[in-house]
């Protein structure tokens, strides 16, 4: 039976966490999560790792393998050169809980601030008919499994203390799915520009590269949202219109005089 060396960063806080070496008996087709389960069953029963489905559908087992954000259940040991050690460490953008588990609750707080789906209450049945081509764009966004790897890799969140200013790629994708839904009547552009901080994204596409669902986050979600913001807030004709009409948008009633 073959052997693979895994270095796992273990501990309950970043300062005192230590790299521990494990020699794992491996068989064909094993993924990193299998190796960690083998460690739990044979060497370290308290090794903390979050996982559920082991099928790349739930997005629980996110971590960094050889420094790259990955799903542990989808990363095969055979992807790495034979005989070389593999490092596994927790996502760096979130507070550490223990070993490979991080506190991702911030993401849920961001999510709760997004205005929910808002269809017209009285739309007739016929209005709920759409062609497949019309919804393929938002179906792409709805593939998201909330693994938060895009949030982890995003340098705006990873390297700067911007968690109160920038919602991150995951939530720009969610907003795009709502804004582009054929029946949605919500308006999240003001939120995107201010609270969500869409302007922080400078389109380095790191999020798209790590997405295990291959969602083209930057091209298909973030850039179109940025264009909508630019159209509304930075289009010179619109700015002139707003000045004339006292702050309202074209097609909206003028703002009441103060």
């Amino acid at each position, binding site marked *: 039976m073959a052997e693979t060396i895994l270095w796992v960063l273990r501990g309950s806080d970043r300062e005192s966490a230590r790299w521990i070496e494990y020699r794992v008996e491996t068989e064909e087709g094993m993924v990193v999560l299998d190796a960690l389960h083998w460690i739990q069953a044979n060497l370290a029963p308290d090794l903390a790792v979050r996982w*559920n489905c082991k099928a790349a559908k*739930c997005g629980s087992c996110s971590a960094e393998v050889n420094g790259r954000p990955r799903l542990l259940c989808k990363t095969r040991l055979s992807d790495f050169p034979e005989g070389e050690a593999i490092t596994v460490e927790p996502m760096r953008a979130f507070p550490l809980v223990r070993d490979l588990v991080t506190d991702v609750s911030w993401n*849920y707080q961001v999510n709760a601030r997004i205005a929910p789906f808002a269809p017209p209450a009285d739309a007739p049945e016929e209005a709920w008919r759409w062609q497949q081509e019309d919804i393929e764009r938002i179906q792409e966004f709805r593939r998201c499994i909330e693994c938060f790897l895009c949030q982890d890799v995003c340098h705006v969140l990873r390297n700067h203390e911007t968690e109160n200013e920038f919602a991150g790629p995951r939530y720009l994708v969610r907003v795009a799915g709502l804004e582009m839904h054929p029946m949605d009547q919500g308006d999240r552009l003001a939120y995107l520009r201010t609270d969500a901080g869409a302007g922080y994204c400078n389109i380095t596409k790191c999020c798209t590269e790590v997405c295990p669902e291959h969602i083209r986050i930057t091209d298909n979600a973030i850039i179109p949202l940025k264009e909508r913001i630019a159209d509304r807030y930075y289009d010179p004709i619109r700015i002139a219109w707003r000045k004339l009409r006292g702050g309202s948008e074209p097609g909206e009633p003028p703002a009441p005089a103060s």
Partner: protein
Amino acid sequence: MAEVEPRSHDVLIIGAGGAGLRAAIAASEAGASVGLVCKSLLGKAHTVMAEGGIAAALAHVAERDSWQVHFRDTMVGGKLLNDPRMAEIHAREAPQRVRELERWGAVFDRTRDGRILQRPFGGHTHPRLAHVGDRTGLEMIRTLQDRAVATGIAVYQECTITHLTTTDGRVSGAIGYWRADGRPAAFQAKAVVLATGGIGRIYEVTSNSWEYSGDGHALAYLAGAELIDMEFVQFHPTGMVWPPGVRGLLVTEAVRGEGGILRNRLGERFMWKYLPDARRHEYAETDDEAMRWVEALTEGRQTDARQPPELSTRDNVSRAIYTEVKEGRGSPHGGVFLDISYLPPDRVRRKLPSMYDQFTELADVDITRVPMEVGPTQHYMMGGVRVQAETGATTRPGLYAAGEVAGGMHGANRLGGNSLSDLLVFGQRAGVAAARAAGALRAMPALSASQVDDALAELEEPLVRGAGDDPYRIHQELKATMQSLVGIYRTENDLDAALASIAELRRRSEGVRVDGPRAFNPGWDLVFELRNMLIVAEAVTLSARMRTESRGAHSRLDHVLSDPAWEHLNVVICPDGLAMRVEGTPAVALTDDQRTLVNKG
């Protein structure tokens, strides 16, 4: 009770998959204050793994479909052991539950005239499954999650419940711990809904996720509630068989729904041989007719061609594959071949995107070019907590159950697609009923200090015990026992051996020891999951031993035929002091109208 301050809600829901979330929304809309506890992060429940679709007689693809036909298919698939009231409520209400999901933001695949598309599945007379490619469960859970959060319920993530409390004979709350730091957690409630899903982790080869350790089954049992139909464990015919690390991972039935053909090592399309005579007329007679059916499906038009033999019910296809392998006609890695590569690659990638990814990324197999290798994998628990059809009320006051943890709806075998619809229909009903029960109760029941103290002491024990057995080892042995002795085919000798083994493992489990801290300690998690799994394993084995016949998913090599004496009997499990009692109970009889519907086929 000095250590822990309980949180109070009218309705406490344990489990945040499809059933728990739907119950939470319903209870909240009914005016109850709702607490939703889940042992994982929100949105990660096993429901995300559901692939094929939600069965509902919307009649968008086949105009002839109706709730009556859906009811009949469900009863026939369940070998008439289903609670017919549940099957009828389910078939009647599933369409409105699906439309409601769309109104809440779910984006289903479309028909040519722009409505929700429905795909064919095994045992369903008509194309009936509303779906989103092969990731329907994700669409459903995300839609429900967003809706639930918007209703303002309290969500308690990564909180494991290990005990239910009772006050004056009524279930009144729950005790457990916060996984992040291991602190004790306590809840008091006027009504508690179990929505904890299934039991797959008692088997070695399973498609189920980490959460599926039978927690709700065991919590209900320990609170004195009855379990029903526990002998009926569904083995899905098509799980991955190679490489070893992914053995058991689900290959959706949608592959066969889209035209996938099963062949053995000799290239034979073996399912022709295994169609039961009574249902043979529902399937194509020749390869040619089956191909015409696939072509019509691909082109989105109606056809008179009948469905391919691969769409027989799951129990039947699983036995067929098992038999082909056992008789030496299996594939190199001990499965059979499932081939969809004769269809245009674009169509395969569009209709089965996650299957395409799963095989390229985990097995180096391009399913648009070569066949997959597949074999049976434990997939679903038909049995569960015995509930009242209309409300999900268990046999204990104050306790409700919905979804996979509840029994009765699917009888001896579940049809694909009927699980997601079950979660929606009975989740909604349990939520409403629990809110109503809570509203009728004037005061919040007080938690008993001694019950809380006992539970907390039990939580502490494995961490402070000086020496003891390793929970991982006991779990390995339990899985091996269930896999080899209580699998697809069963005999009395094997079941007796399994009972002896389970008793020994239980004895050892009572003295397990765990290393490490309380915070996010998987060994500590396993101690209580193991307690639950041992209860479930014993219930499955005792029930299987009692049913001396073969029916649906329960196949006895020493009783190969269905026995008319068992046709109207369910097996019920309940605690009797420290022992587990098993007994037959008369099945709920069909009404005359229901019988007429069933006999129409």
